[in-house]
């Protein structure tokens, strides 16, 4: 006996993501999902970003980590609410894990939640968390082939941050090749070339994310 179905396998995740998105829109909270390979510099970027944003906004952090809370420990000094989600081996966060921890925040008193996803370029791009938008973070030391190998995340992200530009002279990273591949996949993506350790290029990023939070007022 054959039973025809035509059902999205990730319906459960999609439905919960829609609930999360709806709740955040009602509370007028922006949620940003940061996605990168391990070691691209997401936590360092968050350190720099929190240092600026906490002067003007109330920010919450969700740290996706496979087993530890080391990233969360690094962000403690900013005195912002931080929730760690340990995925226990899972390579990405999903909307159910996000939905469960949203209750830990006072959403009426937050402007934005920054989510550091688990380091991975494929899996997190498949799982909608209910975020407002995704940010892809890549680093010079990973090589220039990331857009070509992982097109989906560069297609879906609203902005890409190219980190560790200070290390450019020590690698064979071709900026031309990276730029041309990125342009083919997503000509409209906003790009910031930065060095989070030296501070190069970060002012443009701060201005952009500041604007995104200020202009977040959702139509409900």
């Amino acid at each position: 006996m054959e039973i025809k179905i035509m059902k999205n396998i990730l319906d459960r995740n999609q439905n919960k993501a829609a609930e999360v998105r709806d709740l955040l829109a009602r509370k007028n909270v922006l949620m940003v999902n940061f996605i990168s390979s391990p070691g691209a510099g997401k936590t360092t970027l968050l350190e720099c970003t929190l240092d600026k944003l906490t002067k003007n906004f109330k920010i919450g952090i969700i740290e996706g980590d496979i087993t530890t809370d080391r990233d969360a420990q690094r962000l403690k000094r900013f005195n912002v609410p931080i929730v760690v989600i340990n995925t226990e081996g899972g390579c990405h966060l999903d909307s159910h894990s996000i939905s469960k921890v949203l209750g830990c925040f006072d959403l009426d008193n937050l402007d934005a939640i920054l989510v550091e996803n688990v380091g991975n370029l494929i899996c997190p791009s498949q799982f909608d968390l209910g975020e407002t938008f995704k940010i892809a973070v890549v680093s010079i030391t990973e090589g220039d082939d990331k857009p070509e190998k992982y097109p989906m995340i560069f297609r879906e992200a609203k902005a890409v941050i190219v980190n560790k530009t200070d290390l450019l002279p020590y690698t064979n990273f071709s900026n031309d090749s990276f730029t041309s591949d990125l342009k083919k996949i997503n000509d409209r993506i906003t790009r910031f070339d930065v060095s989070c350790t030296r501070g190069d290029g970060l002012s443009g990023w701060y201005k952009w994310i500041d604007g995104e939070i200020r202009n977040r007022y959702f139509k409900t």
Partner: protein
Amino acid sequence: MHELRIAEDLAAIVVEIARKEDLSKVTKVCLAFGQLVQIVPDIFDSAFRITVMGSVAADAELAIEILPVKLRCRSCGNDFSLEGNLFSCAVCNSTDIDIIQGKEMFIKSIEGE
């Protein structure tokens, strides 16, 4: 790695349908994945085996179809296939492109007795 999590959700759907349809055994599960989802069929098959172990679908065969990417230009309406990761329209050069196929993760049908 995302194969395992997707296989878990699939297994839950298959077991639920088998229960509703009163099947004692699921023999085949037909799926369609868009090319952009980057599923590796062999890995997905292994992940599925783990997630259905001991269930009515333990011996089910998986038939996986990979759907190529199809795009539509939002400016001029041109439909075209993705080649060389180029998301721009060859007719009008617009980069305002919709993905009309390539992101699917569908269960199409199950067979059982």
